[in-house]
């Protein structure tokens, strides 16, 4: 088994199911001492509030010590090689290093140089494996199994690390995945694609709406967010009374990605995802550090 989590593929199905067993227990929000005496370093080269807090809470609930290194600007931009960055962090003796970076592939490269476990908390538009796992966990808690379920992913898929991780996991767990968005946002992929949100919602058992990644666009792709929302906002009119689950990795652009009315609807699992996120990250930390 992998010592690191840089990509969802690092974990096989059994690993994932074991993590989910832990996570189910951890939903009780009780403090434990499973990781007492372990140091976990959160190093975020890119701003993040919720993912970093989620990891910090997860580590603390397991009794670990947590240090947050805030690196506003990437030290690689100051000329430090990735080897130096990794060696310096590793020398502090952590059991795990949680890394977020705006450049794709950085956690993977760091993992080659360190003794501790590297956990990818999002790297560019590449991967966000812990978000993928918590999305999978959330759906499995609702459905028990993903086999044959229909999941539509809507939005800026091409620039979304969440979509990359979700797609890998959902297809591995035998769900059908449909990519929904304007041509601007659809990747080169063999999965089915559509521009028609109405039809996609009629087809789907769950919809994952994504945040439009305006910060990852070097050129304008849509005239405005509203112009995008015109065709791709999840609204009550579209979901009607259908038995469907609505998810979003957050932060949500209200009334762009999802309407206020849908966000308040009980079929919308956004806050449940956040709650599950802590438990799943606890499971991941325990799994990687104890093994």
């Amino acid at each position, binding site marked *: 088994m992998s010592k690191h989590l840089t990509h969802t593929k690092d974990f096989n199905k059994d690993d994932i199911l074991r993590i989910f067993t832990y996570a189910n227990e951890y939903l009780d929000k009780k403090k434990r001492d499973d990781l007492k005496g372990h140091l976990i370093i959160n190093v975020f080269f890119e701003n993040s509030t919720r993912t970093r807090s989620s990891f910090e809470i997860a580590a603390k609930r397991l009794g670990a010590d947590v240090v947050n290194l805030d690196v506003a600007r990437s030290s690689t931009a100051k000329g430090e090689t990735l080897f130096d960055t990794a060696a310096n962090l590793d020398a502090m003796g952590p059991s795990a290093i949680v890394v977020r970076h705006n450049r794709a592939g950085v956690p993977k490269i760091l993992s080659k140089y360190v003794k501790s476990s590297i956990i990818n908390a999002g790297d*560019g538009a590449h991967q966000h494996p812990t978000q993928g796992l918590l999305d999978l966990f959330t759906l499995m808690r609702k459905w028990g199994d993903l086999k044959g379920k229909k999941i539509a992913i809507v939005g800026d898929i*091409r620039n979304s690390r969440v979509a990359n991780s979700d797609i890998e996991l959902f297809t591995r767990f035998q769900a059908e995945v449909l990519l929904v968005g304007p041509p601007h946002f659809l990747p080169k992929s063999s999965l089915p694609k559509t521009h028609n949100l109405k039809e996609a919602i009629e087809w789907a058992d769950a919809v994952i709406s994504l945040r439009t990644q305006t910060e990852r666009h070097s050129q304008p792709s849509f005239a405005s967010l509203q112009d995008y929302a015109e065709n791709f906002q999840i609204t009550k009119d579209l979901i009607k009374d259908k038995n469907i689950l609505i998810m979003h990795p957050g932060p949500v652009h209200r009334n762009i990605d999802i309407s206020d009315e849908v966000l308040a609807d009980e079929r919308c699992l956004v806050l449940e995802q956040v709650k599950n996120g802590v438990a799943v990250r606890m499971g991941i930390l325990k799994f990687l550090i104890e093994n």
Partner: protein
Amino acid sequence: MKIKVPKSFDLNVKNSESVAKIAAAAKNGGVGYALMIPTIKPIYDKLHLAYNLKRANEENFNLLVAIEGIHQGKLSEISILRKKGARAIYINSDEDMNLIKRVFEYASFLDIPVFINANNKALSLGVMNDSPRAYALGLNGIPNYAESIEVAKILELSKNFDAKIVFQSITAKESIEILKNRPSNVYVDVCIDNLYFSDEDVGEFNTLFKTTPPLRSEEDRQALLNACEKEIVDFISSNHIAATQKDLPFEEAEYGISKLDIFTQLAYSLPLPHETVTKLISTNPAKLFGIEINEYIEIEFGEYEIDCFTFSSKAKNTPYKTLKAKIV
């Protein structure tokens, strides 16, 4: 088995390191003549031109220097530079079309070839080929049409002039399709990297495969090899770039693949008839400049490991691992 072949004439060595290093690496790589292409540092005036020619003279190396035909939106003094020893003009295809037309006019009366970098910058905001691999890695891709659109445009213009026009480092099968029926004043060059590697070789962020123009799909690679065999391609060159900043995130790593030290060996290791290779790396480039190559080398065939630490280039890294040919 051994064969005797003329030294090669490399039409695409970027000015990414000192002339002394280029000369030493060229010697290792069986390269008798090299054309220096000014993409790393500017060469558009007498000073920059003279500096490089002087260094080449000191090294006793047959270095031909290309000048930028258009520098920062202005025409260079091509007549003066031609007289001072410039042997080729280099331009980007997406400059002002009126200026490109002027460059073609200059080129025809001065009898100096124009090397075209066919690339639409606005469509090229990526770091590798636009492909499922790029998407899986979360990297922005450069589509084939960023090149082929420019090839089509420049080819149309070329038909109206008799200047020698060389499309340098063509990578896309669509470009080859467009260039198949070109007029006799238009030439096609490919970079050897695109004959060896595809975008899949980038694997998990291997920056040794980050180069420009990018490595394309396997289908493109096969189309290029096929075009070499059918001699739709006129030249194979190295596009040697001495990139040293490789231990960085893929998006920040330097572009380029170092291989001037092994260029001729790599060319004869390709799955192409030896006579074709000789034509594409020696005879055809020499003919373009009206030069005759009088120096010969002996090539022996076998299996040889590459040790990049023996390179004379400052870039002691390369994705190439083995050779089927070595210089005796």
